[in-house]
């Protein structure tokens, strides 16, 4: 239900200039690195290192940009801002939302990959 809204496949494919192989490659890379970036954010917040959390959020944001997923993008941007501002408390607050949105996106991507991409 939310799957089709968490990211826009049509737009994402357009952004990849209709290159299906490229999209698949990027999705695979994201499925591998996205969770790692998220884990880094949490580890950083546990250590009250807002800056490190912000850096990892920045990486996440860069990847998310490729998939046209506005909710995840906004959450990642907010996390990046809080991290840069050194606001551990705010970053910790945002963490749950970011993780949830990211999880949705990853699930959606997995589904798309399993179904195979129609032309």
């Amino acid at each position, binding site marked *: 239900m939310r799957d089709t809204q968490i990211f826009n496949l049509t737009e994402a494919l357009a952004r990849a*200039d209709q290159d299906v192989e490229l999209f698949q490659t*990027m999705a695979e890379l994201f499925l591998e690195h996205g969770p790692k970036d998220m884990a880094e954010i949490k580890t950083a917040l546990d250590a009250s290192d807002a800056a490190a959390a912000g850096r990892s959020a920045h990486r996440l944001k860069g990847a998310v*940009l490729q998939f046209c997923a506005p909710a995840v993008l906004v959450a990642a941007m907010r996390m990046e801002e809080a991290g840069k501002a050194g606001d551990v408390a705010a970053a910790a607050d945002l963490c749950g939302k970011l993780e949830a949105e990211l999880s949705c996106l990853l699930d959606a991507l997995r589904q798309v990959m399993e179904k195979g991409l129609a032309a």
Partner: protein
Amino acid sequence: MERHGTSSVDCNDFSRSTGQTSGSDKTEAQQTALIVDDEPVSRAGMAARLKRLGYRVLQAGDGKAGLELLRRERPDLTILDWMMPELDGPSVCELVRRDPEVFSSQIILMTGHDQPEQIAEGLARGADDFLSKAASPQEITARVQAGMRAAGLIRRLKHATDEIRLKQEAIERELQSAARYVVSLLPPPGQLLPGLEMASAYRPSSALGGDLFNVLRWHEHSLGMYLLDASGHGVSPALRSASFSTFLREDNLLHRVGSSDPGAILTEANRQFPLTENGSYFTIVFVRLDIRTHTLFYATAGHNGLMLHRRSGEICYLAQPSLPLGFDGGNVYHTVETQLSPGDRLYLMSDGLYEVPSPTGELWGQARLETSMREAAAKPLADALAHAIGAAEQWLGHQKFPDDVAVMGIELAG
């Protein structure tokens, strides 16, 4: 964290379709792009876009690897992510601009959207252009193509500059070769006749100069000597001097002038060598020495360089004011006669020697030249001349005389 430690230099897979081994062969039309970004997903997207645009693509996953790849491969355009661990984008820019080998590389720095202050900082640290990670495909394409155009222009400019330098070096080699030829025409120093020693110095200001001197053998007791100066500098005067010196050969002079008399020779030369349409002309000192009687016969045309350093220590300049050759086609040049004594030294010299300027612009002048001649009076002729040249160099502050210096000296054995 381990991710920051490894540098992923990802250049072999989908990027090297042409099989080129190095970026230095730029004769093919395809340009090369280098993308440096530690975030693999966006890097993959950008790399694919660049390939689609027809460029050869190199990739690096961190700043250090990107810099190494840039130095090795010399890509036409480099796209750097801003935020990267250890060596970020702006830092890579700075390092590139400081490296004389690659400082003119075309660099696009990727900025975060809505961060205009980054542009000022990026420019200050060496970026040529900017691209937001959130930029549309159209904007990415436009900026990449603009960057590639700029890179192409810079490369063509470098080629042209290199070609010019190579051509200049070739011309310089030819001039040096011609200069060696001119030097080979000069008379070798040493004993001209029993009892007559000669020394000389030849220092053109550039490879070729317009000054020339020579010794003519009339009989076993009669020598001619001249020092001629073609107006102007460089190749043209040198050619003109060489041609004039052909006129001044013994056989030609006997044929055309009918005598070895300096005045008659200059009078005829004046008729044969008029002012050129550019106003070029010759000045000359011409002497004849009778070795039996020690009589010196001389004539000059617009040239003041005839200096007699008597054994007594007296120094005098023998030339009178006279028109340079070619100024007045009907001018008659007169021969003057004077007596030399054993131990006397006679110098034929170009004004480049006593007009040597100091670093503050003051000319060395004839007075100082005379001083250095007197200082070396007891030395052999060749050493005395070397001493004077050395003193002029000291005055100048280095050894490259700004105006042609040519000196020929003789000494009557005492």
